[in-house]
């Protein structure tokens, strides 16, 4: 975490479905932003370390997400694969302030803001 994070606003919490996720395209990659049943927000790179599955499309349960391609389960808090599987999904920093969601982007992700 050597880079200084740039905190960007990505809209209200209600823009993300409960027990669901939406994606944010950055200059270098795509981020999956999750909202859990207890209304907490987490973010991972939208790329399963196993076969690059889009984690944003998985079923969200507790503070976990299940990859839609091969059912690997990842902790939203740490990015670590659960159970017998090995691997770690890249974790991103998030904040929830006054109902607004913010994500901490690295300089390379900020290089060329691409808001689709």
């Amino acid at each position, binding site marked *: 975490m050597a880079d200084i994070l740039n905190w960007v606003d990505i809209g209200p919490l209600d*823009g993300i479905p409960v027990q669901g996720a939406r994606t944010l395209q950055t200059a270098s990659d795509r981020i999956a932003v999750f909202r859990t049943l207890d209304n907490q927000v987490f973010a991972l790179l939208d790329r399963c370390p196993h076969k690059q599955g889009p984690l944003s499309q998985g079923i969200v349960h507790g503070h976990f997400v299940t990859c*839609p391609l091969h059912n690997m389960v990842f902790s939203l808090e740490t990015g670590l694969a659960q159970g017998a599987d090995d691997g770690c999904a890249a974790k991103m920093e998030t904040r929830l302030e006054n109902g607004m969601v913010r994500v901490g982007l690295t300089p390379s992700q900020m290089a060329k803001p691409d808001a689709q």
Partner: protein
Amino acid sequence: MNFVPAHETASRPRLVVIGNGMAGIRTVEELLSRAPDKYNITVFGAEPRVNYNRIMLSPLLSGEKTFDDIVINPLDWYQHNNILLLSGDPVIHIDRAEKFVISRSGTKTPYDHLLLATGSDPIIIPVPGHKLPGVVTFRDVDDVDTMLAAAENGGEAVVIGGGLLGLEAAVGLQARGMAVTVIHLASHVMERQLDGSAGHLLQEELRRRGITVMTGADTAEICGTDRVTGVSLKDGHHIPASLVVMAVGIRPNGRLANESGVAVERGIVVNDVMATSDPSIHAVGECVQHRGLCYGLVAPLFEMAKSCADDLAGINSTGYGGSVTSTKLKVTGVDVFSAGDFSSGPDCDDIVFRDAGRGVYKRIILFEGRIRGAVLYGDTSDGAWYFQLMKDETDVTDLRNSLAFGQAFAGGSATNPIDAVAALPDNAEICGCNGICKGSIVSAITEKNLTSLDDVKAHTKASASCGSCAGLVESLLAATLGGGYQAASVKPICPCTDHDHDNVRRLIRARALKTMPAVMQELEWKTPDGCHICRPALNYYLLAAWPGDYVDHGASRFINERVHANIQKDGTYSVVPRMWGGLTNPRELRAIADVADKFNIPTVKVTGGQRIDLLGVKKQDLPAVWADLNSAGMVSGHAYGKSLRTVKTCVGQEWCRFGTQMSLGMGVALEKMTWGSWMPHKFKMAVSGCPRNCAEATIKDFGVIATDGGWDLHVGGNGGIHLRATELLCKVTTEAEVREYCGAFIQLYRETARYLERTAPWIERVGLKYVQDRMVEDAQNRATLFARFIESQKTAQIDPWAERATGGVDAHEFKHLTAAE
């Protein structure tokens, strides 16, 4: 009705049994096991049905069991044992001088021996209004049917009587969606079995479940003019109700005996071998009075049956010596046990154990160092142990200090259930209902090489009645067979729960659980919101149980069903529009070609199910792709769903020179009827126009093959890893029949298969006969299955693509978040 022809053997004496209930038929069973060929047997039953397990009426009412589940002896049992069954035709007269009986239909049947098993009648309190329509008792399957019919419209019900039966009725009606009030005369419910503390705990539990309990309440009048509208109490309270269940007790039915001059006091007077004052007439069950006592529980009935059978078979035995009884309330999730006398006296010693946190209350009443009674609430696992100590009049002085903690702590031994059961003496009673002791179960297991609970049930009857000792029997199997025993263990759906699929389904219906949070709360899920394994299963079970009522939970569906397309390895999607019966036309093909061009769709492929797959569509393009396909008249093909996939056809009689029926038309009709239906797993169909079977209907879930005279219906096939050919379900002649059988089969599959179980493993598990019994042999059941399927289709046949392409549903799925400046 239910007439079973029996082949009378002239030389045998005639035994006529009046009563087709639990006591009468158990006596016949016991007699057959002793002297199978001694009598020509005729059975008269007042109810128009076979012998069933009356103590299971409560689960029948609550929906936890079906009538089939509670049948003890089906028709072929009577046939096999050469018994003439005359059900629905009660005996109305006994002529003891000439030795014959006359039934309501006028049939005159001579006897050499007569067995009375006329049971008991529910007591009706003769308050004004007790004969109004809408006032029922709780005694037989007809009563349950009346209650179920009333519960269909919801509304309010009053149960008069807070005893065992009344409370079971109340819980059952509440599970069926009625608002229930229990009116009870005494100061707490079940006062004959429970003391005040346990009664209070039970009342609190009932209240928590939404049942109103009024104690000290005396009924003044049942109100209404042409049907019941409510109940008025003597203290002026009025409770509105469209159904009133009278459950205040039972009275031995000795009418017939009395009219014929057999000695009757409170019940028909019998001696220890169950003979009445007339030596050629025996009596068993709730109708008798033995040593001054009448019984209303099943265990004494079965003991009587043995003594009676001994006597009828000509075997000398000590006879029936009376019973000490115990009671359990058969309400799911409420554990109550009571035995013996719990009214404390001056020389009695009470041991009381309470754990408010767990809602546990135990009270053991000692008299001169022996257990005189026990009341257990919340944890009844030691009920059988206390009961045994009580019946044996064991001196428990040395156990007194740890008695309340149960058998596990008694004498410092037996800390697990297998050791505990191993430590029991051979004469310890395991099955209270059937009076089966440990010794007979163990010898059956070793002599007959029994390896499962079902085996033990079949050979010994242990746990075949109320089933509450099933756990003990399993422990006994484990103790006897050691490592060789594999319990038919419950396989939980996933680590979030201890329940298996079947249990969860049953409880969703029985407890009317209609949302996912309700299921997780009531069934004590261990995680806050389940996981990717249980949530899709629950979503399906709720959808199947409450069509039109349950709101589909998208977040609990796998991505394919959430966005109505198939995710591919690179995160793009594939799109398969429906082609009814594999038929298409130039307009549809042009639209598909245009869509492929417009959205740069890289791969277009013909599928095995006779349609076209567009592969590599970007997620954000999906709504626009669907909109274009919709405007050419195409809808979702559900190629992504646990639902109807395709109906493959051959061209049949429409074109083919060998075709015998219009298979194309039939395929289209079936697909139009069944598309959109959610199922436990994917479901494929095919229709072939002749036995050459070009549509490969014999590896489909439901395959139709035309013949000269009609249609062969095949079920349970699939390709895949475990290739399985279909089995022939039946042959039908008309197109309407094909449609009805198809819908009924799908509905049976939808209602009984486990989530992610295809028809092939499902049929291998339940057996083809199970399916045939329910939808081929039973025309009425087939019709109701079909009706339920059609009903659920009303809310299922909405094109999910149109909802998203133009209806704005789930718009967030197809748009990225955007970063603000």
